[in-house]
């Protein structure tokens, strides 16, 4: 899964989808996670990054990460990555 290419994410945490005109806001941690996803980082890498920087255990991170991703999917800000044939 990745963030749609045309989604604009500002440094303040303002997110704009130019195809629908929808806009959203996220907090600094949400913004950090979004940017990591946009960079193409896998969930494990993101977990390492966030748990190293913030006081959060693995289980709580995974639960919150899953909720966050579900929200992004509901808001249609994501696309599924194409599977590559070996």
């Amino acid at each position, binding site marked *: 899964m990745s963030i749609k290419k045309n989604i604009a994410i500002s440094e303040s945490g303002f997110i704009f989808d*130019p195809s629908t*005109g929808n806009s959203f806001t996220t907090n600094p941690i949400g913004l950090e996670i979004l940017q990591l996803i946009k960079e193409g980082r896998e969930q494990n890498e993101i977990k390492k990054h966030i748990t190293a920087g913030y006081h959060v255990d693995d289980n709580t991170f995974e639960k919150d990460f899953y909720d966050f991703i579900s929200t992004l999917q509901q808001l249609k800000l994501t696309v599924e990555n194409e599977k590559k044939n070996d």
Partner: protein
Amino acid sequence: MKKRTINIGVTGLNAIDSPGPGVPVIRALRESTAFDVRIIGLSYEAMEPGIYMHDLVDKTYQLPLPSAGQQALLARLEYIHAQEKLDVIIPNFDAELFNFIQLANVLKSNYNINVFVPTLEQFEARQKVNLYEYGKKHGIDVPKSKTIFSVKDVYSLEQEFEFPYVIKGKFYDAIIVYSTDQAVAAFHRIASKWGLPIIIQEFVEGQEVNVTALGDGQGNLIGAVPMRKQYITDKGKAWSGISIDDDKMLQMAKKLIQSTKWRGGLELEIVRTDDEKYYLLEINPRFPAWVYLAVGCGQNHPEALVRMAMGETVAPFEKYDVGKMFVRYSYDMIVNLNEFEKISINGEL
């Protein structure tokens, strides 16, 4: 170098909660880089706010109501032209367009007044009562519709339409109904205001999105800007909106203008469903009241229309800014009674 001045008559000076496009069209014209303008406001009622906006409108004349007919309109325009030497008229109301379309040739040949409007055939074909067939003809999805002439017909609609469905007037108004009782009440309410027939339309749930566009009459799309309504009034009007990047909406506008050879401004009212389907709800045969957003996005459609009306060839706009918003507001002007008196008694101000 001094720009030439074009004398332009503009209608639709009302600006209530269902505003007319006249004032935004005038603002667009005043921002033209191609010409200067003298704006002649053409009003129907003494309380149209544009009459009193002297920084936008140089002089205003009352017109007879569209129901007075073409000859009354022509006689009035002849008088106005004698005072003002009109070069172009931009009609902005659906209800007056029929008369202006019918008079366009006479206005050109007898007075050299240019009116850049659709042909009568184009105008009639996209009427709400014909829209379903129109969509079929041009390969565009339109919600299933039916035209009815009597309230008795409402009682048999349950076999064809599921609740909720929409009851629409032939010119304006639309009410979503959830029961036969509501449908009967809506039928009477709209029929008493706009007359018969009444259009029944399948309700499609989704985001309300619109396109303002301009055709050159040769099948070319000169400009188009899609917009999503962000704040909608209880009359269904956009009180704020944002320009969006939606190629399917642009393609719909292009397809329609190409296949109909549309001449003039138009607005497409569209519903975009969650599964990315697009249903055309209405085609308004003139600029919408939010046309100034197109100017803000880099496409001055009213300016391009005037240039085409004056016989120039205009190159299509190639881009527009995405993510530009308009936020409408109301503004109280203080008007001296003698101005109201002049427009009421003399029919001009």
